[in-house]
């Protein structure tokens, strides 16, 4: 029985079906806000769903030079990992008792798998631009993981525990991490790292539609492309949720706090969309220097402040 419940949780709520629906709605918010920033009207709310359904009906092409195992399997692996991260985060937020020791670290690990899947998929596509995108994605992964982990460590040092439960309970009694100096600094670093993790401008170097024609996505068509896009949509749900859990007291579906939870989520999404819309794409060496220089320094300062109790 227990196993069936877990599988249901993974596949339906709060796992795949729920995460995909909310993630796709989030990509709509992204496109709509982008359109309003540019004085356009923007697509209707069902646009991401129409895109996904359409892609599942299209022809699937495996290029002659591609290795089909890596090319077709990797989107599925990435989707499974993104769904797992989403399931863990939702379960912990809805019922902190489901937390286990070190689940922050597990989640951090799982959240890198979609990027690694894209790297392997892009390299397996047999397209030079795909390989270029994959190599850039890899460099970007090395660049943003360091400050992101240290930003997360800030909260862990402050709370003194590796489990989401302790972090949520601590923030319940002592106020959100955002109320402290170290929390604010780590929050800013985490938002910028999320920007790179989701492949948004200014760090969309690996996908760069106008420069390398989609990079790692270039050879995907039909159903695999739909899965890659679902993957991004779910990560779009996971990253803000992770940041809220770590720095802003988590989300809950109980009573009036459901409203503040949704507001927190939408606020973080809108911040990310605004960063996306007001910046040009940077070069990969700029991105690496940015993350290993100023961002690393900022997050290190945040961690030292947290250790000193600020």
């Amino acid at each position, binding site marked *: 029985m227990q196993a069936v419940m877990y599988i249901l949780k993974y596949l339906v709520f709060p796992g795949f079906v729920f995460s995909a629906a909310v993630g796709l709605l989030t990509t709509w918010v992204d*496109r709509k806000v982008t*359109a309003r920033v*540019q*004085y*356009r*009207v*923007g*697509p*209707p709310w*069902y*646009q991401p*769903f*129409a*895109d*996904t*359904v*359409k892609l*599942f*009906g*299209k*022809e*699937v*092409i495996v290029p002659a030079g591609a290795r089909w195992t890596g090319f077709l399997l990797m989107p599925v692996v990435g989707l499974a990992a993104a769904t797992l991260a989403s399931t863990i985060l939702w379960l912990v937020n809805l019922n902190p008792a489901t937390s286990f020791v070190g689940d922050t670290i597990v989640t951090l690990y799982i959240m890198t798998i979609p990027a690694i899947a894209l790297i392997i998929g892009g390299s397996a596509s047999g397209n030079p631009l795909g390989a270029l995108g994959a190599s850039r994605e890899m460099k970007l992964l090395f660049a943003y993981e360091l400050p992101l982990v240290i930003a997360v460590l800030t909260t862990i040092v402050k709370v003194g525990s590796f489990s989401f439960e302790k972090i949520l309970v601590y923030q319940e009694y002592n106020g959100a991490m955002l109320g402290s100096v170290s929390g604010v600094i780590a929050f800013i670093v985490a938002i910028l790292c999320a920007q790179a993790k989701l492949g948004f401008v200014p760090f969309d170097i690996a996908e760069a*539609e*106008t420069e390398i*024609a*989609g990079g790692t*996505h*270039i*050879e*995907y*068509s*039909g159903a695999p*492309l739909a899965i890659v896009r679902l993957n991004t949509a779910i990560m779009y749900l996971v990253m803000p949720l992770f940041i809220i859990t770590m720095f802003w007291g988590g989300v809950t579906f109980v009573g009036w706090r459901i409203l503040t939870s949704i507001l927190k989520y939408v606020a973080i999404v809108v911040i990310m969309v605004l960063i996306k819309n007001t910046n040009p794409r940077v070069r990969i060496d700029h991105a690496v220097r940015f993350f290993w220089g100023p961002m690393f320094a900022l997050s290190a300062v945040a961690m030292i402040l947290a250790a000193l109790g600020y």
Partner: protein
Amino acid sequence: MSLSLKALKKSPWVFHVNTGACNNCDIEILDCLTPRFDVERFGVVLVGSIRHADVLLISGPLTQNCLPRLRRVYDAAPKPIKVVAFGACGCRCGIFRDAYNTVGPIDKYIPVDAYIPGCPPKPETIISGIVKVLNTL
């Protein structure tokens, strides 16, 4: 009509190929994405890779060097794909009809579903053409 075809009508992704056009048509295509016309309202997006496309928008009179490339692009497209010949040159080679390096028009080599005439076509004409080609699905 199947569900995925219905969805295709709501989200046609366009890939644009220039086969030797003078760039005027290409500027008009970008006009459709500006606030005044905003074709993203109807789900139309310009994509960077032919593998993502549902509509192949071809401008230009088709020069000798472009012909093999155009054939490859058409073969690389995931079906179902709709082909739209764009501008006076795309439809009937325009003023380049008698040029030594023009081998067009496009519909001599690949099946074309719609023609959007004009030099260059107005954005209104482009939107009307896209609607008509989607109605042939």
